[in-house]
């Protein structure tokens, strides 16, 4: 047995014996990759603000750039590797939303460009939009009824 293999088998043994370590490791990876993606967003946001865009428009530009990058990284099969390593670190930022659109679309490409790609794009993103938009409409209606944000709760 060469040393590398011994180390590997030992690592496997350790992983098997300590069920706590994977989740800690996963959380650590999710933390720094997720944090890094947000920080990249913040740098883009700061540049936009320096250029004189307002907060709303700057936020939109950040979303568009991050979504564009992650969509193409998914298409090139790079994002899946990051996702395997980082777990929620790449899933929870808006990059995960773009990834959830491209992944199923790629898989069903053989079913055609309209119902295959165009239809399956929304396998995951569809529910996200349904619940997100519905929640925002309900929030708006509640706001209309009480006509106040319950900031006093905090």
């Amino acid at each position: 047995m060469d040393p590398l293999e011994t180390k590997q088998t030992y690592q496997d043994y350790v992983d098997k014996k300590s069920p706590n370590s994977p989740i800690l490791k996963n959380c650590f990876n999710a933390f720094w990759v997720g944090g890094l993606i947000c920080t990249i967003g913040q740098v883009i946001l700061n540049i936009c603000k320096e250029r004189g865009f307002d907060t709303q428009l700057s936020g939109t530009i950040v979303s568009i750039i991050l979504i564009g990058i992650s969509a193409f990284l998914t298409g090139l099969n790079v994002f899946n590797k990051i996702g395997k390593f980082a777990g929620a670190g790449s899933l929870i930022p808006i990059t995960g939303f773009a990834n959830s659109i491209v992944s199923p679309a790629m898989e069903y490409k053989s079913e055609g460009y309209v119902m295959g790609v165009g239809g399956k794009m929304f396998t995951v993103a569809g529910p996200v939009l349904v619940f997100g938009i519905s929640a925002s409409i309900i929030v708006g209606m509640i706001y209309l009824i009480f006509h106040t944000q319950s900031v006093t709760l905090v």
Partner: protein
Amino acid sequence: MDINWANVFDWMVLLKCFVTGGIICIIGQVLIDKTKLTPAKILVIFVTTGAILGGLGIYQYLVDFAGAGATVPLTGFGYNLAKGAIEGIEQYGLIGAFTGGVKAAAGGIAAAVFFGYLASLISKPKMKKQ
């Protein structure tokens, strides 16, 4: 136009952003590891939570504190939708609840649809590794 790079790389702002964004992702990771929720359901939970916290005015504090650390995660997407709906209500009344949210998130949704379709078109089918 001149850009003041000291403002762009203000380390305190970036640190707050990094830590907050990271913690939100840890919450997601714990949900993945400790529950049987699928990633799709976790995304839905995050967006809905963001919309509710945004509606209550709580998420605004996090956005003021962490900037992109709070807006880049999907909870920020929900917050953006809710904030837009409330702004729409203030401007147009009831109809604003329907137009405001999507209007605020329009850039992200349109980019996701357009780039998503484009990226799927140029993607190569996965090679099965044997």
